[in-house]
């Protein structure tokens, strides 16, 4: 029940914030702040109470309520370690989003916070829903307020960006709806019970062709959201045009719903089809890593640059998801969290700068270290996190992902690793252009205020924590990941077995060689 209350709390808080604007102009801010804070505390409470005592299944809490029984739609929510982590991330970033908008948003404050809280509610719903109909419902709930956030409070090309964002996600979401319905009917035909329940649908046996098409339906939504390279072009526009809070939520959370969907739905529902598709998916991931990095390097708009780094980083996610082993998946989960923090932080930084300079053009910046050393140090940490410096969370994520991906596909991993070099190039470009060199324009740049330190400092601490002692996070995610991988347990040896005849595998001699080596290793253990 507590899961339901989490969502209801956010929805109600949103409505209240909207109404509250009539009473006092800053009432919505406080209401939103308290709503998100209480959600965060509630989730932390969940972690402390239930996270520590894992039951025999990976699920910590489940809620099943009939909703539209005629169609087999249930209001079913469930929480496992993965969801819990993402919820924590959601509310943490949500809190920062409220704080960051304190000054930035000055008109339609109530409606802004309404949208903000409803996006958060939609995201939490997506992370919790265990009924595909409900999942789709929340998927849409998260989309529309986001459209308003971009479209109303965005920068100069806000309408263009908002439409683009909406069309991309909506079109792909409809494909997912088709796939959901397809799955629903196939399952119904087989068993006679028509239901959208995730746990029931897991038992569907699918013909290979059907499985492939349904998987593509789901992939469409998730790959666009993630985003994977040919479908990424909504992201730079949406990210750069959204208000800071919107960018933080987009980059930190909305992208993660795509990754979450891959983990939660695509992997367990279509085990054989995904294995077939894996080399291509990994290839897409690698292309994303490299292509995003190249594009990021050339941008002069700070927010756009950061947006393209997201494309690059999300490439690691898909690379890891389709490696089908625990290292990679743990890496993916870490990447979701660490990227949420680091990219969120970079957007916040861009927001700080925008607030002071009213520009996002890096050619007009430079030499800010002198005037704003605190901001410089913060930026340095964020930038280093983004380029994957060991000791910060992203490194653990990327390293685990690559270790896992290496087991699945050598050459693609090599190229993905090259992405790290390119990441260095674009990340350092931020430092160089914004904080180093000479302050030619003589801009006066006040250093971070107390409120801003309050926002930035926890992110630095969390990044360091994730980088130096990620074990609690990994422990929390582990049962959930094992569960997602259940369908692959027989398939795991196939990872190192002689490769299927695909161009992306190394020559057969190589893989047999590796297999031999691996066999021998086990002897010595």
């Amino acid at each position: 029940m507590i899961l339901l209350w989490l969502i209801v709390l956010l929805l109600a808080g949103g409505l209240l914030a909207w109404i509250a604007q009539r009473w006092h102009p800053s009432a919505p801010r406080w209401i939103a702040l308290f709503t998100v804070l209480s959600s965060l505390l509630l989730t932390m409470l969940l972690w402390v109470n239930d996270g520590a005592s894992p039951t025999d299944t990976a699920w910590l809490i489940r809620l099943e309520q009939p909703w539209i029984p005629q169609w087999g739609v249930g209001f079913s929510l469930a929480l496992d370690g993965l969801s819990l982590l993402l919820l924590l991330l959601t509310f943490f970033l949500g809190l920062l989003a409220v704080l960051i908008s304190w000054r930035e948003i000055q008109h339609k404050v109530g409606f802004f916070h309404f949208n903000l809280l409803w996006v958060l509610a939609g995201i939490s719903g997506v992370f919790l829903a265990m009924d595909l109909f409900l999942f789709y419902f929340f998927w849409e709930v998260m989309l529309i307020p986001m459209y308003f956030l971009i479209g109303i409070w965005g920068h100069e090309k806000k309408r263009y960006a908002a439409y683009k964002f909406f069309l991309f996600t909506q079109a792909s979401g409809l494909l997912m709806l088709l796939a959901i319905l397809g799955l629903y009917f196939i399952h119904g035909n087989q068993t006679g019970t028509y239901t959208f329940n995730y746990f029931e649908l897991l038992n569907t046996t699918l013909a290979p062709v059907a499985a492939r098409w349904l998987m593509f339906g789901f992939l469409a939504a998730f790959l666009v959201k993630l985003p994977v390279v040919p479908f990424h072009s909504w992201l730079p526009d949406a990210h750069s045009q959204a208000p800071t809070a919107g960018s933080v939520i987009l980059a930190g959370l909305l992208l993660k719903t795509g990754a979450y969907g891959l983990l939660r739905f695509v992997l367990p529902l279509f085990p054989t089809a995904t294995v077939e598709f894996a080399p291509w998916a990994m290839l897409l991931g690698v292309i994303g890593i490299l292509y995003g990095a190249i594009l990021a390097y050339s941008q002069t708009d700070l927010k756009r640059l950061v947006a393209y780094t997201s494309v690059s980083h999300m490439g690691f996610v898909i690379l890891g998801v389709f490696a089908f082993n625990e290292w990679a998946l743990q890496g993916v989960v870490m990447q979701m969290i660490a990227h949420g923090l680091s990219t969120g932080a970079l957007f916040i930084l861009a927001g700080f700068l925008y607030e002071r300079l009213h520009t996002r053009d890096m050619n007009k910046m430079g030499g800010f270290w002198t005037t704003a050393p605190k901001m410089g140090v913060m930026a340095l940490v964020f930038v280093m996190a983004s380029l994957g410096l060991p000791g910060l969370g992203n490194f653990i994520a990327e390293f685990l992902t690559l270790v896992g991906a290496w087991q699945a596909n050598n050459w693609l991993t090599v190229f993905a690793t090259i992405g790290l070099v390119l990441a260095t190039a674009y990340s350092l470009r931020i430092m160089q252009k914004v904080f180093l060199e000479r302050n030619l324009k003589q801009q006066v740049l006040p250093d971070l205020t107390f409120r801003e330190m309050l926002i930035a400092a926890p992110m630095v601490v969390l990044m360091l924590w994730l980088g130096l002692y990620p074990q609690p996070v990994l422990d929390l995610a582990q049962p959930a990941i094992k569960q997602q991988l259940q369908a692959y347990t027989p398939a795991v040896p196939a990872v190192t077995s002689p490769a299927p005849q695909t161009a992306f595998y190394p020559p057969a001699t190589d893989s047999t060689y590796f297999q031999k080596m691996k066999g021998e290793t086990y002897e010595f253990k």
Partner: protein
Amino acid sequence: MAELLWLIPALPFAGALLLVLLGSRLPRALVTTIGVGSVGISAAVTLLLGIEYLSESPAFYHQVVWNWFNVAGFSPSVAFHLDALSMVFIFVITFVGFLIHVYSTEYMAHDPDYARFFACMNLFVGSMLVLVMADNLLLLYLGWEGVGLCSYLLIGFWYKEKANGYAARKAFIITRVGDTAMAIGLFMLFQTFGTLHIQTISTEAVQVWDTDARMAVIIAFLLLGGAVGKSGQLPLQTWLPDAMAGPTPVSALIHAATMVTAGVYLIARMHVIFELAPGAMMAVAVIGAITLLLAGCAALTQYDLKRVLAYSTISQIGYMFLALGVGAWSAGVFHFMIHAFFKALLFLCAGAIILALHHEQDMRRMGGLQKKLPIVFWTFLIGAASLAAVPLVSAGFYSKDQILWLQLAGENGNIWLYLAGLLGAFITSIYTFRMVFLTFYGESKTHVGHQPTMAIKLPLIILAVLSLVGGFIELPHNFGHVVLFSDFLSPILPTISVVPDFNRYEWMLQLLAAVVSLSGIFIAYLIYLKKPDLRASLHRSETAMAVHRFWHSGWGFDKLYDTLLVRPYVFLAKVNKDDVIDSFYTFLTRLAEAFHDLFSDSQTGLVRNYVMGIVVGAIMILTITIFL
């Protein structure tokens, strides 16, 4: 004492953290205390541990601080492993580091970013210590990247100059290329062994692989890639000369004495893998040989004092690689230690000169400093002697001679490698004394402003003494036969087997090396001091000047990479700034808009036309009904 192991890296980290958090608010004296003190205490702990280690002589000390993470059996710890090899490194890092910190208090005294400087320096020392004390490769990688970061921060310390930032970025990115190769090596090691624990890998590797096993060779090459990047060896050496943009103490500590030798450490640490991969070993030696020659030639032509030293560093690390490549592990590490002493000394002297001459680095504008900066002169001379391997008195002679000797005497030795080393030694002594003569002799060209005080003099003197006597702990067997150093390392690093009955030639080779070294000095004396005409005639010759320019630009590597990699990449990025893929979607929108215009035009606003439309529709429907 062993439980204090964690303190050694933790102290500098703590210092860095304190300085980052409070640095700008603390008074300078306190910043100095924290910055220098943390490294000082660390050095003291090292000393204590070292004494205990020597007296107890255990195989190693090991301390798990905490378990970093554990994923499906991949469980690296934050754990420190101290054996003889690490001992040598941490000794050099903490002591040389401490001396350089002391020196910096004066060198950086008037810099507004005093606290930031010490924060970075402390961070560097901490990372470097983690690198050499890590018990697994992932933690080593942490230190590895950490020093890269500090190097970036310190090269770009004077960030207001665009060029400095560029050099810093260049350093970070180029070393990261090597790191990427190393990371792939780590993936492969993990796939084979299921762990990255160094000791486990070392013991198991020999069981898993035969000599020349394919995996071992690939991994060794990948690790070599990492080492090459960090140590400024061919083909990733181009960042190091530019790295001289940082403050001189930084150049001394990071880009001469410690960080750049991380590659040497890595190869020595993973020697088991390299021994299983003779091809990779050969590559190490060849890379070392080529690098030492190329860098030596480039050093001959530089005018910037620090750039000469930078190229000489590349060259000297080439010697270390040469040693490692033929399996002379302890010789390589020995040269590392000696090199750390004399190169730090040379850099610090250069720093003192630069400080005295108001940040003048061009040797053509120096001269005659012999009288004006006597302490610096003498210490510099000692360092130069060590670098040029002046026989008998200098430590550099003993370390370098050992390497050269083992090129022939060692099992994997090779006459070509030896000749390359010998030629390198010749070039080394030329450019070293070119430096000495240009700087300290001749007439004075720039006014001396700042006279070094105690904080500068003391480190210089200590390092000078070490550069002189450091060599005596390892003497060739026909000459004293002291083997303290190689004995110390023998439990960790296998001793090289020497071709029997070769010993009788040793004195000949030593003599040869001595003659080469001295003749190099003599030539430098001739050209740069005695016969300026000779130099002038060289300057007149077209070919000589062409070669000069070519060498001056570091054999054109910068230009090569620029045209081959950087420009195409930047071009690609610039061309594609607006994302080709996006244009596909833009095309879709255009298409929709075109249709919109089309249909919108059909709406004329005239009722007649609408009626006409209805009629046409009716006709169509009727026609269909009739004909179908």
